[in-house]
């Protein structure tokens, strides 16, 4: 049953083939046996999961089951959960239990889903390899010598390894799409404002967005419907109706206009990845789509702009971690300044400190205009690039990452790590949605095709991704790691 999609599991539960408790127990067993090697979970919440599964089974017994009732999933450890540790991958919050549930968590609970636990991640969502976690790196189930991507690496690896059929992630500069690509699963970053950020620990508030990670686009559609919508507790969430994302999955792609940004196929792109992406595009042509080249002329400015804006916001967002009210506090502080300095020095890891320093610097008097103001101007240009492109085409396609998953420990230099996000970062700056779908392999390591749409075009993206999955089988492949003989 661990190979099934959410849709298939829902059908099995409805048909009475097994109960949610049996399914939950089976998956908890797999986590128990396999995750020691993989390290995709920070916390496994077996007791709460079984209680939720029983409640789901009881609801089904009463005829009150909805489409997600009893379905297991996992939550990135960035979402606050009442009574369960929410660490954000950091020593700073190793002792933190939120007294409240994130809106997304509340919605998933209300839909009857069963959370099996909290998944590993780069500390405070800062990273592209999941090597920045206080809880250690996560391995890629397709190749245990490779990273799973980041920052939602635990969620991606857990789904790829069949520990859970779906998981929730967050994406500030590619943190859903890049690990989805590296782990051969489907991951959607919705439009900024589509999903409430309340209860999701902030990295860069104007870029952060939560989204689903699953085996198929159809499963992502199911989950997005459950988590999307306006939230009065998040002023940046958008008051706009939530369509039934599953209703349009089967729409025909005949006449679909696909744009290929030439900047996404240039220098630095692994030729094997390019080949896989081109092959996927051919599939689309066979489905009736037309393809043309487009240009996003400010693409080369996306990484510099991102690494001004995101650290600036982060430096302010992470000020609350001061050792005063919650989180890590140093031993025997001699005075207030000592308390601040040592608590933060001990509680934060390298990369987090680096970004706080960058952000503090770029916001400083005398530097603000040169960095922050300029970066915001660039951000508007990048957004305009996309708006212009969507005047010509319906969706954009390209690789999710310039290379397949790289080796653990391979990218020691922070800047070379930052450059990994070349194809994903601009999307967050523009606020548009993007999805990564499995589109082949380079050796053992998966390749992701990224599809981008205009603001609030999630239904279209999911339809386009689903049609590809009806015509291909990359998303059905399973790593050897997942094929345990039990």
């Amino acid at each position, binding site marked *: 049953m661990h190979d099934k999609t959410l849709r298939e599991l829902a059908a099995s539960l409805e048909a009475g083939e097994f109960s949610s408790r049996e399914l939950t127990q089976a998956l908890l067993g797999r986590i128990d046996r396999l995750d020691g090697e993989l390290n995709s979970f920070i916390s496994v919440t077996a007791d709460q999961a079984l209680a939720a599964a029983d409640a789901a089974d009881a609801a089904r017994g009463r005829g009150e089951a909805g489409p997600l009732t009893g379905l297991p999933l996992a939550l990135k450890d960035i*979402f*606050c959960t009442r009574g369960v540790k*929410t660490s*954000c991958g950091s020593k700073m*919050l190793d002792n*933190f239990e*939120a*007294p*409240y549930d*994130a809106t997304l968590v509340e919605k998933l609970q209300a839909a009857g889903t069963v959370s099996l636990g909290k998944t590993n991640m780069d500390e405070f969502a800062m990273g592209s390899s999941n090597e920045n976690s206080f809880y250690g790196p996560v391995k890629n189930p397709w190749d245990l010598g490779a990273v799973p991507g980041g920052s939602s690496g635990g969620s991606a690896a857990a789904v790829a390894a069949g520990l859970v059929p779906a998981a929730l992630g967050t994406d500030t500069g590619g943190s859903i799409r890049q690990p989805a690509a590296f782990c051969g699963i489907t991951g959607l970053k919705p439009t900024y404002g589509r999903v409430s*950020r*309340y*209860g*999701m*620990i*902030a990295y*860069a*508030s*104007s870029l952060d967005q939560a989204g689903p990670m699953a085996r198929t686009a159809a499963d992502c559609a199911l989950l997005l419907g459950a988590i999307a919508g306006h939230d*009065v*507790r*998040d*002023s*940046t969430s958008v008051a706009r109706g939530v369509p039934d994302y599953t209703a349009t999955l089967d729409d025909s792609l005949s006449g679909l206009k696909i744009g290929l940004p030439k900047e996404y196929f240039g220098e630095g792109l692994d030729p094997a990845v390019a080949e896989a992406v081109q092959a996927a595009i051919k599939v689309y042509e066979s489905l009736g789509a037309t393809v043309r080249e487009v240009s996003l002329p400010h693409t080369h400015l996306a990484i510099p702009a991102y690494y001004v804006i995101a650290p*600036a*916001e982060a*430096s*302010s967002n*992470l*000020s*609350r*971690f*001061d050792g*005063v*009210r*919650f989180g890590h506090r140093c031993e025997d502080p001699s005075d*207030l300044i000592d308390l*601040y300095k040592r608590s933060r020095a001990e509680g934060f890891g390298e990369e987090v400190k680096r970004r706080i320093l960058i952000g*503090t610097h770029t*916001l*400083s*008097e005398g530097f*603000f205009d040169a960095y*922050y103001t300029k970066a915001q101007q660039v951000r508007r240009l990048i957004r305009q690039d996309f708006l212009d492109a969507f005047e010509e085409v319906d969706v954009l396609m390209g690789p999710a990452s310039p290379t397949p998953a790289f080796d653990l420990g391979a990218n020691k230099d922070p800047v070379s790590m930052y450059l990994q996000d070349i194809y994903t970062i601009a999307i967050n700056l523009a606020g548009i949605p993007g999805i990564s779908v499995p589109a082949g392999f380079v050796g053992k390591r998966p390749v992701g095709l990224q599809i981008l749409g205009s603001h609030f075009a999630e239904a279209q993206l999911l339809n386009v991704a689903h049609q590809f999955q009806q015509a291909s089988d990359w998303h059905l492949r399973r790593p050897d790691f997942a094929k345990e003989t039990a």
Partner: protein
Amino acid sequence: MMEWETVIGLEVHVQLATKSKIFSGASTAFGAEPNTQACAVDLGLPGVLPVLNEQAVAMAVQFGLAIHAEIPEVSVFDRKNYFYPDLPKGYQTSQMYHPIVGAGEVEIALDDGGTKRIRVHHAHLEEDAGKSLHEDFHGMTGIDLNRAGTPLLEIVSEPDMRSAKEAAAYLKAIHSIVTYLGISDGNMAEGSMRCDVNVSVRPKGQAEFGTRAEIKNVNSFRFVERAIAYEVERQIELIEDGGRVVQETRLYDPERDETRGMRTKEEANDYRYFPCPDLLPVVLDQAYVDHLRDNLPELPDEKRTRFQEALGLSAYDAGVLSASRAMADYFEAVKDACGDAKQAANWVMGELSGALNREGLAIEDSPVSAAQLGRLIARVLDDTINGKAAKQVFQALWNGEGGGQADAADAVIEAKGLKQVTDTGAIEAMIDQVIADSPAQVAQYRDAEPDKRGKMIGYFVGQVMKASRGTANPQQVNALLKEKLDALC
């Protein structure tokens, strides 16, 4: 001897009277147990987000309209970043670059009877911080976050004031406006209004400003005057002794009546302001602003003018009665209940204010309600009681007699038998008795020169009033007595 001019600018922090905080649903009530009015948002827990309180926006706009300020279509919240234990998020959400209220002006009354316009540079919304409690924690510091997130309107004046008196008058004018609007309780003792005072001196006639000192957190009208007086003297003395004023933050100590430099690193702080990405820009449409403008209550200046022009009060009376909204509301309720503005004004400013002052009570806490006082005055006007009895009734009402209803005066009049006797027969009977009981005085009256008799009649009036226990109508008593005594001559 050099002549000096004082230059003063004020930053007034007004706590807005919203029910809940500016970015959370927690209560803003004063005086609760520490940290019982701080929710997850106020504590700055990971993952929480601010949601702007619409009431705070409306109140800020009302203030702007009241001072005839520009109301920009768009205002933006910024983060002011610094570390302090009573600042839970590590930043204060404020408005640095695009405040909600633009330039406006406030008129103040001068001692010479004239007025002066003080320009307001802008007013912006921000959240208050919590409180650090240094006592009772054995060398440690306690943090109370009840106040964290309380909405503040910071009103920044231009350096237009030239004396401590003008500064106090300006502060009073702001106080009067915000309490009239009902956007703040204006309670300075509870910190609902406090101000930072920028003071500098310059030789009279010099165009450029001197170096200023900022006196932080002054929280009474009196302290503002005294702090400025001290500071001006200090600066002049310093300069005349060959020193120079340094730009610094100072604290006023009311106990020693002096200002002192604060040892603070704040001056060196770089607050790294940037727009808060968790809050959308506030966009006010014209219809919304117009609606607020149309529904503004009558403001102090307008009320003073109406009291003079429509009610016929003197300039002085109109000024006193419109000084605070509570006073004006009380006066108007008395006036409505008795139907006579002048009598209402006399009673409110006379008997009532006297009694309130003796007991140190604010008009809001008057034991005699406006309705009760109005009824009492009405009973004088309709001749039910005379003026002397009215004072007795007022005292009884002050002491809580009469049952507390609006018609308590009637109950007191009834219970004490103070109803004025106007029945001629009854008064004549009392007069006859007094005349019969006072043969010596009658004889004196008879023997007196007719032009002296007028004075002598006072004795008989007193006796008759005494006999009536004050209830006889004094005019009637006078007339009848004169008639009867003259008949005896």
